């Protein structure tokens, strides 16, 4: 678990640096949490299954496949758009196509820096697919990332990191949900003995 936390730490550290460069402001991040959680509790981490969130989703391909979500509250997402690209999204309602596209690209940059540092550290090939964006209930979005785990049991392992900028509340969260078979590969690549399998 400590090894996975360190992996998450390095990835998230790089993403935080990227975000801080984009914003030209310091961005703090919480120490990543690595947890084996029942499905029900995963959406609790963003405020409940019905909580409306904006998620940028990328499938990670390569040696250690998995699902990567960058999750923001609608307010945080609109704030990012204002500060980063000078857009002025409506306070209520959905993002238009341009705003979605811009946000997708921001998510892509952050996810890319997250993944490339993980890949460097583990010496595993990890490449992101084209990002997709959804603004919807957290449960509906995150359940998509749990399907691979669904075949094995009712828990999933995830690495969760929260970003904070100044006094703003939770600015964003990274959820990396490696596929069930990816853990052993990550461990092995880091020289940690794997007892089972």
């Amino acid at each position, binding site marked *: 678990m400590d090894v996975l936390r360190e992996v998450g730490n390095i990835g998230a550290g790089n993403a935080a640096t990227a975000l801080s460069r984009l914003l030209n402001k310091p961005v703090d991040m919480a120490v990543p949490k690595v947890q084996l959680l029942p499905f029900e509790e995963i959406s609790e981490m963003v405020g409940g299954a019905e909580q409306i969130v904006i998620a940028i989703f990328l499938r990670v391909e390569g040696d250690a496949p998995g699902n990567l979500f960058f999750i923001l509250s609608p307010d945080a997402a609109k704030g990012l758009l204002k500060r980063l690209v000078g857009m002025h999204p409506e306070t209520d309602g959905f993002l238009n196509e341009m705003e979605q596209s811009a946000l997708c690209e921001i998510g892509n940059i952050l996810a890319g820096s997250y993944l490339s540092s993980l890949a460097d550290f583990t010496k595993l090939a990890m490449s992101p697919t084209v990002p997709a964006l959804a603004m919807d209930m957290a449960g509906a979005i995150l359940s998509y990332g749990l*399907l691979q785990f669904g075949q094995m049991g009712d828990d999933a392992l995830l690495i969760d990191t929260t970003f904070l900028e100044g006094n703003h509340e939770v600015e964003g969260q990274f959820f990396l949900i490696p596929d069930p078979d990816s853990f052993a590969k990550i461990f092995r690549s880091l020289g940690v003995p794997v007892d089972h399998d």
Partner: protein
Amino acid sequence: MIEEQSVVKVGMADLNVIQHSGVIRTVGLGSCVGLTMYDSQLNLAGMAHVMLPSSDIAREGQLNTAKYADTALPALLDKLLQLGASPSRIVAKMAGGSQMFAFAGTGDTMRIGPRNVESCKLKLAELHIPLIAEDTGGNYGRTIEMDASTGILYIRSVQTGVKEM
């Protein structure tokens, strides 16, 4: 949608029943399917939150029957029959099975929503239970609840508000 009533919650890969009054609810359906069965004479409502189409692909030790369409539907039916429901009176409704993220490729997982819907329909046909209403597909999440006293299914989504059927 009366808040003072008792609420039975159905989690992901879970199933449950409620009788006489109150509502049975499952939240945040994406590619999962919320399937209900109802016996109007007993005011008996059952609901399953189906996550995957078939238990054939299961690799878990102790199979969670509520998780797979092919095992959840018979399990839910059994539960209703044990409570005295008549097979000839039971009708089904379902919602969910969307594709939350629409992008090209990456195989079967992308299509899990539609496959969940197909698999539920197949199983209902096998069990001879009529499907009298459905709200499936699309690219958005749904929260559903059934009122045990009426058998009305309420479907709430972020984009389209509340529907009833």
